[in-house]
């Protein structure tokens, strides 16, 4: 009876109200609750299954406003699906936290969690206590993680030879829409990271890498600018389109006569006063421009706007200027050019100017759109990846794909151990876990074996998406792995003729895989531990 515990009767048979609005509250309890969780989890995982791997398909999502997103990035798909179910929401967060921490493998982690839940269902039917299943899973996860450490290979991280890094980035990009220019994108990602990497701390500051997109052109036109690209143009069309050896004044004060912040009112009663005011304003403008000139700047970048009068004055004084540059961009420019952000004209001095070797406007085809490129900066460790593509969807997806690639390269910088992808390490772990299962005397044995089966869900999905007969392919690879004792055999998704991921250069980071397994296991434990759900009823209004 689902409502046990919420209804009580006194001896006259009248129900006693214990909880607020208890008639309308829904409650699921015990095995029913478990079943409903597992169903929800599986449904979410199934949506993502077809997106896995190089032959995975994309999803098209239409938001309530009619915006279209096409992607195969697990975290993006889930966050745009607006999952209502509580357990479904947990899976969404799971993929999000994988995204936050690792940046890649967001689909894989959900598929794995879904498979673990599916296996748990069978075990629950056998009558095994859910917590014991969870315990078994955790034991198995430990075995798998240890095994991953064992089969992981240290990867040469050499600043001179970037090929290995490019290969890893290519694995990530392989499943994305932009795999047409996989190599180029991978190189861009690696170069960008190498540009900003801090080898001593083994850290990469992502704030220094900006990914800008612009519709138009081809994917191949995507490029890496060692500097900053701002979607702005010079304020006046007659200003020069190119500045060499620019000394940049970076201003966050508006180019207008300063106004008090306090509410004020200026009473002008006669013409003279009015003239005075005009004089005053004009004087202010010249004063401002003079202070810039005096400081020796030959380019002005301003966070705020300035009106036509100021614009004209700047032009006549031959001071190229850019207006309405956003806060984060101002910051990037300041860091790149080594300048200081100046909040007040009075503070402007020569040593606060930034320096850039080459500032120019980029033209795009026949459109009248322009962008501002700031290159050859004093401190060249900021860079911008400038993505081009045929339509907005492609550009957006390319940006996401590049983000994933950047994350993977960063992870390699942090920890240079790798495992082989294409399902190879999952199969290897599955074999190891299954072996370990036989050594356990308690009921957990079943859960551990189930975990091994769940691990195989990733290669199974890969094979299925690639159009192979999944069971047969995975079985072949598995037997080959055992026969040759080679953990780098995986699914040959691209039909290149070899199963050896080492020679196919399908490489994934160790920390990414470890994270997938431990996150999925911990989340599944949480889901299994719930045996009672209470939902508020339909609201009465």
């Amino acid at each position: 009876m689902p409502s046990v515990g919420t209804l009580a009767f006194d001896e006259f048979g009248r129900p006693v109200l214990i909880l607020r609005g208890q008639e309308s509250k829904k409650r699921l309890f015990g095995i029913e609750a478990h079943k409903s969780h597992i169903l929800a989890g599986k449904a979410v995982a199934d949506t993502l299954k077809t997106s896995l791997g190089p032959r995975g398909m994309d999803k098209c999502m239409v938001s309530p406003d009619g915006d279209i997103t096409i992607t195969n990035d697990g975290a993006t798909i889930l966050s745009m699906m607006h999952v209502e179910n509580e357990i479904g929401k947990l899976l969404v967060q799971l993929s999000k936290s994988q995204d936050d921490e690792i940046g890649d493998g967001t689909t894989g982690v959900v598929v794995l969690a879904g498979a673990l839940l599916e296996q748990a269902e069978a075990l629950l039917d056998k009558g095994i206590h859910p917590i014991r299943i969870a315990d078994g899973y955790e034991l198995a996860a430990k075995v798998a993680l240890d095994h991953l450490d064992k089969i992981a290979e240290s990867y040469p991280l050499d600043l001179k030879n970037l090929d290995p890094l490019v290969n890893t980035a290519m694995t990530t990009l392989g499943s994305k829409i932009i795999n047409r220019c996989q190599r180029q994108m991978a190189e861009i990602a690696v170069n960008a990271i190498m540009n900003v990497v801090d080898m001593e701390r083994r850290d990469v500051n992502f704030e220094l890498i900006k990914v800008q997109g612009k519709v138009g052109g081809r994917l191949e036109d995507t490029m890496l600018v060692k500097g900053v690209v701002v979607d702005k143009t010079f304020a006046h069309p007659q200003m020069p389109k190119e500045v060499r050896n620019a000394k940049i004044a970076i201003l966050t004060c508006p180019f207008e006569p300063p106004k008090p912040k306090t509410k004020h009112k200026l009473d002008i009663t006669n013409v003279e006063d009015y003239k005075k005011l005009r004089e005053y304003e004009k004087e202010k403008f010249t004063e401002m421009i003079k202070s810039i000139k005096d400081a020796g700047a030959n380019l002005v970048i301003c966070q705020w706007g300035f009106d036509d009068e100021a614009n004209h004055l700047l032009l006549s004084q031959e001071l190229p200027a850019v207006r309405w540059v956003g806060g984060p961009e101002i910051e990037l420019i300041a860091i790149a050019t080594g300048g200081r952000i100046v909040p007040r004209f009075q503070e402007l001095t020569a040593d606060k100017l930034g320096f850039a070797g080459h500032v120019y406007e980029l033209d795009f085809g026949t459109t009248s759109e322009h962008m501002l490129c700031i290159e050859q900066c004093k401190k060249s460790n900021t860079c911008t990846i400038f993505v081009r593509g045929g339509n907005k969807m492609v550009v957006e997806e390319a940006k996401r794909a590049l983000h994933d690639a950047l994350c993977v390269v960063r992870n390699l910088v942090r920890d240079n151990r790798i495992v082989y992808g294409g399902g190879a390490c999952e199969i290897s772990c599955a074999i190891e876990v299954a072996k370990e299962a036989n050594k356990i005397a308690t009921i957990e044995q079943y859960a551990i074996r189930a975990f091994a089966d769940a691990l195989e869900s990733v290669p199974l999905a890969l094979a299925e998406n690639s159009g192979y007969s999944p069971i047969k392919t995975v079985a072949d690879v598995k037997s080959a792995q055992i026969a040759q004792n080679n953990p780098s055999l995986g699914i040959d998704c691209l039909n290149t003729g070899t199963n050896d991921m080492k020679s196919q250069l399908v490489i994934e980071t160790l920390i990414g895989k470890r994270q997938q397994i431990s996150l999925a296991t911990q989340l599944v434990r949480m889901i299994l531990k719930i045996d009672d759900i209470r939902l508020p009823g339909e609201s009465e209004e």
Partner: protein
Amino acid sequence: MQPMIIILKDGTDSSQGKSQVLSNISACQAVTEAIRTTLGPRGMDKLIVDGRGKATISNDGATILKLLEIIHPAARTLVDIAKSQDAEVGDGTTSVVLLTGEILKNARTFIEDGMHPTIIIRAIRKATALATKKVKEIAVHIKMDNIKEQRALLEKCARTTLSSKLIARQRDFFSKMVVDSVLMLDELLPLNMIGMKKVTGGSLEESRLVAGVAFKKTFSYAGFEMQQKKYLKPKIALLNIELELKAERDNAEIRLDNVAEYQKIVDAEWSILYNKLEKLHASGVNVVLSKLPIGDVATQYFADRDMFCAGRVQEDDLRRTQKACGGAIITTIENLDDKVQQVFGTCELFEETQIGSERYNFFTGCPKAKTATMILRGGADQFIDEVERSLHDAIMIVRRAVKNDSIVAGGGAIEMALSRTLRDFSRTIPGKEQLIIAAYAKAFEVIPRQLCENAGFDATNILNKLRQKHAENNIWFGVDIMNEDVTDNFIAAVWEPAVVKINAITAASEAACLILSVDETIKVPKSSAEPSNAAKAMNMV
């Protein structure tokens, strides 16, 4: 025929007599039923969605009861005792409710048989006194002189608490962390000096303890990125001042009749801000934290002078920083001269570090007060929330254990010992009380029974084994969850501080007495409902 006398307002619901007592007992039992399954290492979690759609997954009795929105007056008592147990000792909230329910259940038959509640209450009081005396008597004192031994004790207590929680698998890891954090505190063990910060992403094991203060990077303006992010032995100023260019008075209005004055006012406003900034700079401060916003001008000013600033710092974070690093929260920048240097705090190292996708400010090596911050990681928000609650329980237990060095064995052992003592005692009394004390003794058995039931064991069988062991004076025998057997839980290191048990027993008995002593409920109909309806009607018209 007597005329009817109406004393109470129309619609007042009043019920009284034996049936009222019985109905109250039923209500309490219904509530107990709701959290019954959360007890012990094999206890399950509940997922509760509140009216606003916020989901909570918890194993903590007090949290669950709070979220259930119980309206039944007698059943609310249970919520209150769970809360008070939570406030007093922090753990054992489920067992206290369970115990109350069981005492009531056993008392029910006597009420039905017509025994007067006051007799029952008197007997329960007597038994409670005996039980608490017995706990004190058999509790084992651990010598706290030896730091190593004390640590071991504390860790075991923390482990026992955590074993029933979501993080049971990681309890070794977390019990160390909890004990470390508590031992970092000073004599008074103030709970608010342990901060908990939650960052989604990463696996549980990546949680860490920081000996000092840590908080999330606050909202920042342009220029922030240019500030230095690492200081050795910085001078820290804690402010309660707005560092922003703004109107000094909100509804003030200035009237100007002269253009020349315009500039003066602008300058005056700037100088207000600049005065503050210059004073701060002149005092040699490196790190400026403020509860109120720090605007873009100030940010850039500080960036220009190699100072770090963070505005809109949460109040409790600021307070913890103040406690840890010394200094005072300054509300004015006057009197910042060198003579009164105590206004600034300091620490060994200040650093900004990336955790997951968030950036955190760390203050470590604080000289003044001892403080600790836990940074929790996990796959989903609800997941970390539950981890936080679990750790809170563990911290409370450890704090209790530090102050109170006597411990008892958990896992139902102490309850069985009490049950046996009381039963033996009951046989020595002639009269009605004998029955009640025996029933009270039986109520204690609910804890081991429920532990077994949750784990799916044959509860009767295990209980009989336990009774037999306890009859042979093996007072520390309790349920062995791992092996479906009984074991000496003192040796198995399932330890709980004795105060927790004493508090639970007294609270449960008092609640039971309270519920038994009520024989009439007068429920006044909601008077507020009608006017509000009327008001609605008014609005409609």
